[in-house]
């Protein structure tokens, strides 16, 4: 603290002439203000364009025919708009011997994401509630292990999980993958719910206890109705996270259950046949569409979710 104050003083003296000049400039605040604005808005606009560029190129490419792609440049808008690449990506693109398009991966992803999101949130919310309001001896120890475990690279735990799932007879099935998503979603979700429930006024909980309500009654009648926002945050986090997963999909399922990301990668990076860049880009957008929709619809809640999710790394 002291050193900062000292610095201020020194800086203050050193820049005395400069501050006189600043005084001269001060008479025309409009101009300096607008020059600053030009720098700020100019930089931000350029950056925004850079961020938007890949999305633009994806869309534009997906609407062109292959002949046009071969002669033109990737930034040019399509001369002739065609939706054929989209149709082809959805229903005809090939992975290996299957030529039924990305639709199969899409429905697989739906069948993976929906139960995974529901189960992982159900388990983690009850668990977070137990940790926040019904602490028992040893609970904090397991919770600490859970949080520390979130930093362990998945690669370290993959093979033991394969063995456990094989013993349970669900290796290679959707059920197995759903269990895996529930396991790896647990640290962040439990943390999220625990912190949220711990932040609710304790009097509510105590009053309900005095009235004779038990564990589940309090959860369903008091906690659940009061915490809809955090459930939405958790859903956003899980839907995007599970939809975007690649590693677990490729390790824990058989090819007929591959999620959309895995199938997309197989379609685009397959070495057979002529590369159809327009179909590839249409397929890429299709795969990104679900998380993008969630993102644009949810807005601020998404930011809240990743701020919480960021803690897990």
């Amino acid at each position, binding site marked *: 603290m002291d050193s*900062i104050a000292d610095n*201020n003083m020194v*800086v203050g003296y050193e*820049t005395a002439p400069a*501050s006189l000049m600043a005084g001269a400039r001060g008479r025309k605040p409009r101009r300096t203000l607008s020059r600053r604005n030009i720098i*700020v808005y100019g930089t*931000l606009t350029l950056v*925004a364009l*850079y961020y*938007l560029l*890949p999305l633009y*190129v*994806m869309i534009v490419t997906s609407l062109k025919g292959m002949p046009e*792609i071969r002669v033109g*440049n*990737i*930034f040019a808008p399509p001369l002739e708009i065609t939706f054929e690449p989209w149709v082809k990506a959805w229903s005809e693109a090939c992975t290996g011997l299957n030529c039924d398009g990305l639709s199969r991966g899409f429905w697989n992803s739906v069948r993976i994401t929906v139960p995974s999101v529901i189960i992982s949130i159900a*388990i983690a919310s*009850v*668990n977070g509630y*137990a940790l926040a309001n019904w*602490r*028992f001896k040893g609970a904090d120890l*397991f*919770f600490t*292990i*859970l949080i*520390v*475990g979130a*930093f*362990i*690279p*998945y*690669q*370290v*735990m*993959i*093979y*033991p*999980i394969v063995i456990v799932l094989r013993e349970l007879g669900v290796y290679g099935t959707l059920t197995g993958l759903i269990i895996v998503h529930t396991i790896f979603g647990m640290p962040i979700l439990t943390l999220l719910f625990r912190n949220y429930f711990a932040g609710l006024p304790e009097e509510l909980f105590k009053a309900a206890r005095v009235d004779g309500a038990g564990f589940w009654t309090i959860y369903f009648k008091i906690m659940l109705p009061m915490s809809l926002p955090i459930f939405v945050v958790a859903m956003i986090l899980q839907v995007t996270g599970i*939809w*975007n*997963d*690649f*590693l677990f999909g490729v*390790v824990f399922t058989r090819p007929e259950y591959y999620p959309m*990301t895995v199938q*997309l*990668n197989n379609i685009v*990076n397959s070495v057979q046949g002529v590369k159809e*860049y327009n179909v590839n880009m249409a397929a*890429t957008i299709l*795969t*990104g569409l679900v998380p993008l929709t969630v*993102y644009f619809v949810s807005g601020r809640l*998404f930011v809240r979710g*990743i*701020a919480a999710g*960021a*803690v897990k790394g």
Partner: protein
Amino acid sequence: MTGLTRGSARPNQWLRNLNAKIASIPMILTAVVIFVGGTAWTVVYSFTNSKLLPRLSFVGFDQYERLWAAPRWLISIQNLAVFGLLSLMFSLVIGFVLAALMDQKIRFENTFRTIMLYPFALSFIVTGLVWQWLLNPQYGIQSIVRSLGWTSFAFDPLYNSNIVIYGILIAALWQGTGLVMCLMLAGLRGIDEDIWKASRVDGIPMWKTYVLIIIPMMRGVFITTLVIIASGIVKVYDLVVAQTSGGPGIASEVPAKYVYDYMFQAQNLGQGFAASTMMLVTVAIIIVPWAYLEFGGGRKRG
């Protein structure tokens, strides 16, 4: 707190709070069986010569010796180091500068944030494939610049093993800097307005206030962000698979891909276990000092 609940405690310790214990069974199983058990299992089996199936025949450090003699592993580590250092540096600097710009009480802040953060909603597979297309030397950025007149312009990272890792870096930064910006912005918003007033009164230039006062005050945010990015970097896998599949040749291999390939494709489990244990060690080197600083002192609160 405990005093109150103790008052109504029943004699049987195990049945007390039974519902909470039942509700915590998934957590306990995950923590004990998967996180602790699974990790220990992998570490133990990394000292065996398991091939197709895990077998408990110990061979000491053989797998590790083989690992560190393998060119592919050395390239993976080198790539991870270069990629890691550069992406840490760039994402912290770019993220902070963007956050500082966003903190100038600008209009359209929401629009800018929405644009900068949307890539983070996309998967690494999508990110990798888009940038594979943008960096395509025949149609992508290289050909555009050439068609503008600079015919000798060469930027084909995905086909040039010397610079391929930078091609992946560009994609990774596009995907991740929005998040860093958001974290930094939250940190900046947490700074007391009076600090700014004081520095303005003293006539300190804005950049100097940032460098000498604000950044040191945001040390916590920086460290947290650093840990988040770093532990993400160690896991980088999907992006490489989608963008280059490790190529050209083995020029863009990364440790996570080495692990996967040896476990599930080369059927050399021992190598996979040894490599994944090395990943664990790397993460521990990053996390343990941070956790010690962050929580070592904070434990008193309980």
